[in-house]
């Protein structure tokens, strides 16, 4: 299975009925594809929509109904629209139950860097800093390594996104939590052993006696 799909299917299990959830661009967007039928999630797009639905059928799009990447979407029954101040009031005011974001680095204390590679990639932070600072729960979805180098590091070398540590990190090899501010291996990826995870990880990981293999949300 592709690593992105493993990550998305594992994170899908964290979504519960009734939650207000914001999915970032990239792997996080895929999470919506792996939810069990009947689960009712309020998906927020930070450009001003709750009730974001899948892309429209051919010829049924509206140029003023888009997601945060500017792509056409649909609105589900019960959707509502609002301005950017309301949108970030929802995010910063503690109303957003969960945000799922991509990452460039996560360090062993749970700090996330995901908005800039100085002098190389300067896209701007968009809503990322507000989301990490303000959401009730923050999950990072990212591949474990980039070009063979661990993205889970002892200390972020890239500028961090917020002083607030993330709650959960999901890669294709591991689910990592940060109880007491220490990166802890909670689950291993399909077919991976704890020692394989340790070998692929720069950060120091706490390894409990029993580490189960991750269960995936439905395909």
């Amino acid at each position, binding site marked *: 299975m592709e690593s992105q799909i493993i990550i998305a299917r594992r994170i899908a299990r964290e979504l519960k009925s009734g939650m207000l959830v914001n999915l970032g661009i990239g792997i996080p967007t895929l999470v919506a594809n792996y939810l069990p039928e009947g689960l009712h999630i309020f998906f927020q797009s930070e450009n001003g929509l709750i009730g974001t639905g899948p892309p429209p059928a051919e010829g049924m799009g509206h140029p003023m109904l888009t997601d945060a990447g500017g792509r056409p979407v649909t609105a589900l029954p019960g959707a509502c629209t609002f*301005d950017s101040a309301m949108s970030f009031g929802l995010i910063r005011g503690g109303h957003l139950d969960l945000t799922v974001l991509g990452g460039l680095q996560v360090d062993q204390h749970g700090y996330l860097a995901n908005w800039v590679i100085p002098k190389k990639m300067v*896209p*701007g932070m968009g809503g990322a800093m507000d989301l990490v600072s303000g959401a009730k729960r923050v999950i990072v979805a990212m591949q474990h390594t980039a070009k063979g180098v661990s993205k889970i590091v002892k200390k972020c070398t890239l500028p961090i996104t917020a002083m607030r540590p993330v709650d959960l990190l999901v890669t294709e090899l591991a689910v990592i939590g940060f109880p007491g501010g220490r990166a802890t291996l909670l689950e291993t990826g399909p077919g991976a052993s704890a020692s394989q995870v340790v070998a692929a990880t720069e950060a120091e990981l706490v390894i409990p006696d029993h580490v189960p293999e991750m269960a995936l949300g439905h395909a």
Partner: protein
Amino acid sequence: MQTVSLENSVAMIPNGASLMIGGFMAVGTPERLMDEIVRQNKRDLTVIANDTAMPGKGIGKLVAAKMLRKAIVSHIGLNPETQRQMMAGELEVQLVPQGTLIERIRAGGFGLGGILTQTGIGTPVQDGKQVVKVDGKAFLVETALRADFALVLAFVADYLGNLGYALTARNFNPVIAMAADTVIVSAQNIVPVGVISPDHVMTPAPVVDYLVTNS
């Protein structure tokens, strides 16, 4: 509120002016005003907006025509030309977290000196800013933003200037309409007074200075 032709609305904007422009990745940006600014060759503009859109769309048209001296925005990732001009030192870009940006504009329009926020604490966004403690928590002081002009796209405007917006094209528009000395509105539909029910007016007429007539 006065009505004004497209040409005359942009003629009011001097070189060097600061503009707040509605839109999110060009959705909700008054494209007619962008095209007319390019046609009238305005220079040295400061733009305050969510993003610089993408090449060929919305604010991206002003970037491509090198009309901006400074951009105060949250995101430039979809516009390589903005990044190129920034790296080359031709365009000053101030990157601001999106929620902080919209709240600074809101503060400017609501008569507040600024806002206190936890967003940006411990990151490069904090550089040079005052930190205050409230109930034991640290907050950044983020100052209010205002501009000379707000360029607003409404879905519907009535003859008095009451405005409504559509779907995700609302975004920054009603907030910037409060925060500029002169508010210029381009509306997709201009309708008689009363067509917009009072509960559905999102920007009240008295804050609108000019409504651009439709051709």
